[in-house]
């Protein structure tokens, strides 16, 4: 019971904080909108940055889709999305994107007698469960991966997100990468046509349903697993190694990513190589206009991002996010220098 109460309370507190933040915002504040997944860390950074510089941040955590819409419509200085836009979409709207923070998505279960980290699954089996092909926890495919575990004959109750979400994008992109059938039948997106299961709204909705349904399996952000002590699964990664979900495993997946050769930073970090890589890792992105209407505002926003890259790593780690590695930050700031211009055509970032 405590899990969902906590989760609900948390979401209510965040909601209340967000609604309080809106009317209090002043003209001088940096304005942004988008993904809910990085909201806790953005809020923490903003708080620390306000103390340091006196400039506040007004961030509406309305979801990645909403963030993309608002930056295209020019109603905010930056948008935030957990799913990267493809380079051609960026060019069409005169946008650039860059990674801001990294996190992981974790499958969680509720099976009687199974403790956190006791059960291991591989990608194809996970995909088959979400396709509705593996129906019961004592299925031979699951038994083969867990010869020692005592698996009950309980029916598997699949739980997924009902709202469009960057979390779902990362999760489905992993399932699509490991299962051709998933890719063909269901596809990869922020919301898909799920073949089976029930939908919960937000991470807290999924956490709630999994917590109260015997035999349930769902997927949530890492912070949720840790804060609510949920029963997480281990996964077999691309190198065939079994890994625990933890910050170092997300870091390992991010370290192997080749940002320098990804045009527009279009890079999905799921199913990366490396013995320690967690297979469902993803970055959350910031979107800005190349030639912003209000160059001064974007300048302020860049200062905030720069400050966060350099001074925000500890705050991010406290909240179980993985900061962007230093070489990638240098790469990003070079992109700012090269492609962002003010009204007079002069570079915005020096």
């Amino acid at each position, binding site marked *: 019971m405590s899990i969902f109460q906590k989760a609900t309370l948390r979401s209510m507190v965040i909601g209340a904080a967000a609604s309080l933040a809106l009317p209090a915002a002043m003209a001088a504040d940096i304005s942004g909108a988008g993904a809910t997944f990085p909201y806790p860390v953005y809020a923490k950074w903003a708080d620390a940055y306000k103390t340091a510089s006196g400039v506040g941040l007004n961030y509406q955590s309305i979801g990645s*889709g909403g963030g993309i*819409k608002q930056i295209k419509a020019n109603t905010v200085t930056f948008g935030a999305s957990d799913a990267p836009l493809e380079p051609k979409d960026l060019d069409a709207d005169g946008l650039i994107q860059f990674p801001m923070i990294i996190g992981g998505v974790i499958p969680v279960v509720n099976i009687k007698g199974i403790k956190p980290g006791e059960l291991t699954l591989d990608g194809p089996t996970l995909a088959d469960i979400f396709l509705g092909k593996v129906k019961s926890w004592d299925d031979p495919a699951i038994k083969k991966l867990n010869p020692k575990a005592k698996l009950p004959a309980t029916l598997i*109750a699949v739980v997924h997100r009902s709202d469009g*979400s960057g979390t779902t994008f990362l999760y489905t992109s992993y399932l699509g990468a490991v299962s051709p059938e998933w890719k063909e039948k269901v*596809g990869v997106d922020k919301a898909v046509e*799920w073949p089976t299961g*029930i939908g919960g709204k937000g991470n807290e909705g999924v956490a709630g*349903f999994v917590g109260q*349904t015997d035999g349930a399996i769902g997927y949530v952000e890492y912070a949720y697993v840790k804060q609510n002590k949920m029963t997480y699964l281990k996964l077999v990664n691309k190198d065939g190694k079994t890994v625990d979900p933890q910050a170092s495993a997300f870091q390992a997946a991010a370290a192997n990513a080749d940002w320098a050769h990804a045009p527009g930073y279009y890079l999905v970090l799921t199913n990366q190589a490396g013995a320690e890589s967690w297979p469902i890792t993803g970055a959350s992105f910031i979107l800005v206009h190349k030639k912003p209407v209000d160059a001064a505002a974007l300048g302020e926003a860049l200062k905030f991002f720069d400050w966060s890259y350099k001074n925000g790593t500890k705050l991010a780690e406290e909240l179980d996010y993985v900061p962007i590695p230093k070489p990638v930050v240098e790469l990003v700031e070079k992109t700012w220098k090269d492609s962002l211009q003010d009204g007079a055509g002069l570079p915005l970032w020096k």
Partner: protein
Amino acid sequence: MRIATRTAAITVLLLLGGVIIALIQGSIPAFREFGWGFLTAEHWNPATEKFGALAPIYGTLVTSFIAMLIGIPVSLGIAIFITELCPRSLKRPISTAIELLAGIPSIIYGIWGLFVLAPFLQAYVQPFLIALFAPVPVLSSLFSGPPYGIGIFTAGIILSIMVLPYITSVTRDVFETVPPVLKESAYGLGCTTWEVVRKVVLPYTQTGVIGGVMLGLGRALGETMAVTFVIGNAHRISASLLAPGTTISAAIANEFTEADGDLYTSSLIALGLLLFVITFIVLAGARLLLLRLQKRAGT
């Protein structure tokens, strides 16, 4: 005075017209792309941008139907008890309790439904229903599958509780308008309480009762938050009432913020238009029914 009131009345009409125009305009891309297929297709796939509204329409109608099936008899029962049978000392507390029920925000019903009602239904009621109806041909498929605790059935129950205060307070008020002389003469003829209610109170007040029921139905059709919490949010039509489904308003609430792509947004707006049309049809139907009843009473 006349100008002020007229302006107020015209403003309402303008607002209504504006909403309709905005809904129609917003849903044009979806209808142009899918045509009538939008109404008859069950699949809802944001990845491939193929949308059909049948599952939310089905969910909206079925949950409201369940709500009415439970809500109407219980509400009428409470109203009859309060007006005909209740000791004077209990009348006030019960009436106040019902009115308080109407004042609870729907999100509270949602949270209660998710954390209290759904686990209870999952642990006790649904396994019982599945076992009870297993040997009965049609009912066995209506009550089958794993007991999730949430789904169409649970949403219907939550809705029935939510419409209860509306129907009850309206019907109680109209029951009280029945002239005592009518009731007393019926009792004088030796009628039982049941006969008085059936033959005197209900015929005298049928217009008001139907009005109260329609008010409740209107609320059930459009209710969003509480339903979103407990319906399971799956764009599927299942034979079983215990399976997850979705309603029009729940689908819009869940997906609107993250809907990128014009077709996706337009399909959600089209869902809103459909809800508008369904509500309109239901209310118009109620009006027609009332007119016919009045005509029959007149002849």
